[in-house]
């Protein structure tokens, strides 16, 4: 049986790992390669490296970093941040990334998903969606609005419609971050995740809200998530991955041990 995946996410700025809370207040959390290797040895199933610099110079630095990651890391890894066109995808896959994650660029020009799928295969195309709902306007699971530019700019796209469109255009996976849950550590947006996983034909990665081991169990069992992504709880050693996986296995979740 296919295992549920645990994915540490490393936000990269100027070659270093950082993690924000509610997308602001960045704190340093270590060397990206050393951290990636440590996670791989501890049993992480994949890694995500997000370039949050996205300046021209930063992008070159990041490409060099991707080459080093590919040389040293022996599990699959996804890279994202600042990917706007097919040439960016080509450059990062050539550097050794297994998958690329696109976000704002896909919302601005959805055809980019079709182009990536056609040229490199759906399996390399992760569509990341940052979305937020207004708690005053209704209950969770309705009225989720997609945001671009690192969660700063709202769009007219609804989460569920956009995810379905991305699926149909050839995305290989959806990485859904709930901006309401991100950094709060009260658990993932499992109601919305369940609605996504039950309507899409591709895997969904849950992101935003991990604060305890139980949150991972809940998103796999209640949210039907295929994978769960987190950053700070791993970077600061709050939840050691081996301990998390043993816990999940004991709770009846199929994980790789």
């Amino acid at each position, binding site marked *: *049986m*296919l*295992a549920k*995946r645990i994915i540490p996410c490393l936000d990269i700025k100027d070659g270093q790992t950082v993690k924000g809370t509610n997308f602001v207040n960045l704190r340093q959390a270590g060397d990206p390669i050393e951290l990636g290797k440590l996670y*791989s*040895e501890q049993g992480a*199933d994949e890694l995500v490296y997000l370039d949050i610099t996205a300046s021209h110079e930063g992008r070159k630095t990041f490409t060099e970093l991707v080459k080093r990651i*590919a*040389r*040293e890391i*022996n*599990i*699959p890894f996804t890279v994202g941040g600042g990917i706007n066109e097919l040439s960016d995808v080509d450059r990062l*896959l*050539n550097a*050794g990334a*297994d998958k690329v994650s696109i976000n704002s660029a896909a919302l601005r020009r959805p055809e980019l998903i079709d182009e990536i799928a056609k040229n*490199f*295969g*759906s*399996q390399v195309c992760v569509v990341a969606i940052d979305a937020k709902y207004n708690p005053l306007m209704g209950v969770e699971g309705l009225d989720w609005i997609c945001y671009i530019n690192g969660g700063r700019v709202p769009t007219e796209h609804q989460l569920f419609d956009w995810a379905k469109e991305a699926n149909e255009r050839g995305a*290989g*996976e959806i990485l859904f971050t709930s901006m309401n849950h991100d950094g709060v550590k009260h658990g993932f947006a499992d109601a919305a995740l369940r609605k996504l996983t*039950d309507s899409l*034909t*591709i*895997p969904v990665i849950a992101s935003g809200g991990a604060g305890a081991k139980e949150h991972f169990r809940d998103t796999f069992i209640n949210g039907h998530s*295929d*994978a769960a992504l987190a950053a700070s709880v791993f970077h600061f050693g709050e939840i050691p991955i081996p301990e998390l996986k043993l816990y999940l296995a004991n709770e009846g979740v199929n994980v*790789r*041990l």
Partner: protein
Amino acid sequence: MKVAIVKYNAGNIGSVENAVRRLGIEPMVTDDAELIRSADRVIFPGQGEACSTMTYLKAHGLDEVIVNLKQPVLGICIGMQLLCRHSEEQDTDCLGVFDVEVKRFVPKVHEDKVPQMGWNTIEDTKSPLFKGFEKKEFVYFIHSFYVPTCDWTIASTNYIQPYSSALHKDNFYATQFHPEKSGAVGERILKNFMEL
């Protein structure tokens, strides 16, 4: 030890090159027939689509080179599927080392997503390729087509139905999963291949 990695129009070849380097071996990534024939080990890797890769192999004479190799050969992912007789993907005639048909996964329930992407276990392993493993190990898969279990199956995996996750016949070995992306387990499999 001289290790040749067959260079052709498939993706993911650099990952295999990196993985072989991590074993302390500097591989040659080449489409040169002589270099491939003279290597101690040949790896036929890749991620891609059957028809366009077969067309490329034929156009470059690599089809004949590969099937006539005498040293241990390891096909990975599309490399394994191309070593079979025929693939349902674009109705493609393949190299025919393994006389078996490559089929498309047909989902039975909503949870059966295609491609299979992620970590699954290999079972009923019977080959020196899996030397040193005592439990059902997890390896990394990413594929939409599969090889049914057959006479040459040396490991099977269950996804939608049981199928061949590794094959062996004479000097030809093949894995549907990606040892180069399968952590310590994958590294051990590649090391075992070098020690055959």
